[in-house]
């Protein structure tokens, strides 16, 4: 969807006049960006951020070890939260798909409320609120439980939307060959729904990874906490900007790697759909062949997913 096909709804193939104008605008864009970069470099120079003693901190192995420990703490919280969120997502989704109203309705309410609470407020409730009634927990568990609750409820909506978008014939065929409700869900509906929603699920995991940084605010010693600690160290000349750049890059690289996985899965799903359409089969489009893109967007918006990305929290 890059290049001309993507944008031709906005403009025609440019003529000589438009080509010249586009060139000028292109140069203007580059000039503005260079000016911005130049300004930052100038401020760096003026405030002495390039001086060697501000960067000296990175010549010590122990400092790198501490940054690494921070990254490991981030990943530890992420791994536990991701597994927990997937498990909770399935439980809530299955509950919400139940035929029994006394299960479906309360589960629906729980999902909606969990999605509406800011993750940070939930973390604070676990870490600062619960000790009031005598329950104390490590910041690690406050981070993990809050992330599981929020992302689990979002994933539940994603999975449910995936199941509900499948053609009815799928479950009817399942019942026709004698499967029970559980079998239809487990063997027929969920595998298809998960495959269709896989890019969204991985994108939500990126949100989970980013949200672990909230642990910084409730004193969980993850990467950002280490960055602040090292950056405020007067022994090394308080290199806050330097540690933020180096440590922040670790964050961005981790998130980019996971986002790339989501992107690759999306590309593969798209290719498979095109193949199926070319072979005359029904595409595994979440809306089926008759759905418009607008309906698809509305569907994904309801599932807590924004096309093409989910702001989630953080």
């Amino acid at each position, binding site marked *: 969807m890059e290049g001309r096909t993507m944008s*031709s709804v906005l403009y025609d193939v440019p003529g000589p006049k438009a080509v010249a104008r586009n060139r000028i605008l292109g140069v203007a864009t580059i000039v503005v960006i260079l000016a911005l970069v130049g300004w930052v470099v100038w401020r760096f120079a003026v405030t002495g951020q390039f001086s060697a003693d501000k960067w000296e901190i990175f010549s010590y192995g122990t400092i790198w070890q501490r940054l690494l420990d921070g990254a490991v703490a981030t990943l530890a919280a992420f791994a536990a939260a991701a597994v927990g969120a997937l498990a909770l997502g399935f439980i809530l989704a299955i509950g919400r798909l139940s035929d029994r109203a006394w299960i479906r309705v309360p589960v629906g309410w729980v999902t909606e409320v969990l999605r509406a609470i800011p993750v940070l407020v939930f973390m604070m409730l676990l870490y600062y609120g619960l000790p009031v009634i005598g329950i104390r927990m490590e910041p690690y568990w406050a981070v993990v439980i809050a992330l599981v609750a929020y992302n689990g409820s979002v994933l539940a909506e994603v999975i449910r939307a995936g199941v509900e978008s499948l053609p009815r014939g799928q479950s009817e065929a399942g019942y026709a060959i004698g499967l029970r409700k559980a079998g239809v869900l487990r063997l027929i509906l969920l595998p298809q729904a998960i495959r269709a929603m896989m890019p969204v699920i991985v994108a939500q995991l990126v949100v989970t990874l980013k949200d672990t940084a*909230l642990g910084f605010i409730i004193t969980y010693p993850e990467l950002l906490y280490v960055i602040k600690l090292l950056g405020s160290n007067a022994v090394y000349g308080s290199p806050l900007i330097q540690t933020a750049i180096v440590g*922040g890059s670790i964050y961005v690289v981790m998130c980019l790697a996971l986002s790339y996985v989501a992107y690759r899965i999306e590309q593969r799903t798209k290719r498979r759909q095109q193949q199926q359409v070319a072979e005359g089969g029904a595409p595994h489009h979440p809306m089926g062949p008759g759905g418009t893109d607008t309906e698809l967007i509305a569907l994904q918006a309801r599932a807590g997913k924004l096309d093409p990305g989910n702001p989630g*929290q*953080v």
Partner: protein
Amino acid sequence: MEVITDNLDLWGEALTGTLVLFFGGGLLALVLGFIVGAMRVSPIPAARAVGAVYVNWIRNTPLTLVMFFFAFCLPILLRERIDAILLATLALGVYTATYVAETLRSGINTVPVGQAEAARALGLTFGQVMTLVVLPQATRSVIPPMMSVLIALLKNTTVAAGFSVLNLGSVRSNLSERGENQLVTLLWVMVIFVVLVLLLAWLQRAMERRWKVAR
């Protein structure tokens, strides 16, 4: 309930802080997001590249880290004390703008190319193609996901609590200094957020119904 009625001044300030962050950040995000979104669908390769780098970079950075840069690093670079709420608003705007830009871009992509081609074939000018054919259709598919972005922004305002901005996220620490029960305070904060988010979600559904495309 006494937690609220005994400290109305603080809750009022906190709610004001949250609303300032929400509306300020939202306005900045919409303006910046519109510019970046336009860059990403423009026929200028340099602008497209800049837009893509900005969106992919910021979207893969935790908001807490973005706010960290604005709250702690920017004052060092400027050698000035800057109001914390202004810095937090800037961070929220810069972060949310990437989602606004992507929502706009995918909204424009939902308009079939044939629509614009037909409009051009009829002899409409660029302005007419945009205002009469493309944008009315794109707007409809953009509004529901844009509301989701704003809902996320509202919840994200709490992150400013970590950077000494008084808002609903930080009202806990201020009230605990007054000796209030932290658990009750936080439960009330949750209730307020659930109400606000459900309100926005209701607005979103109403708009979705009203703007549904019959295609």
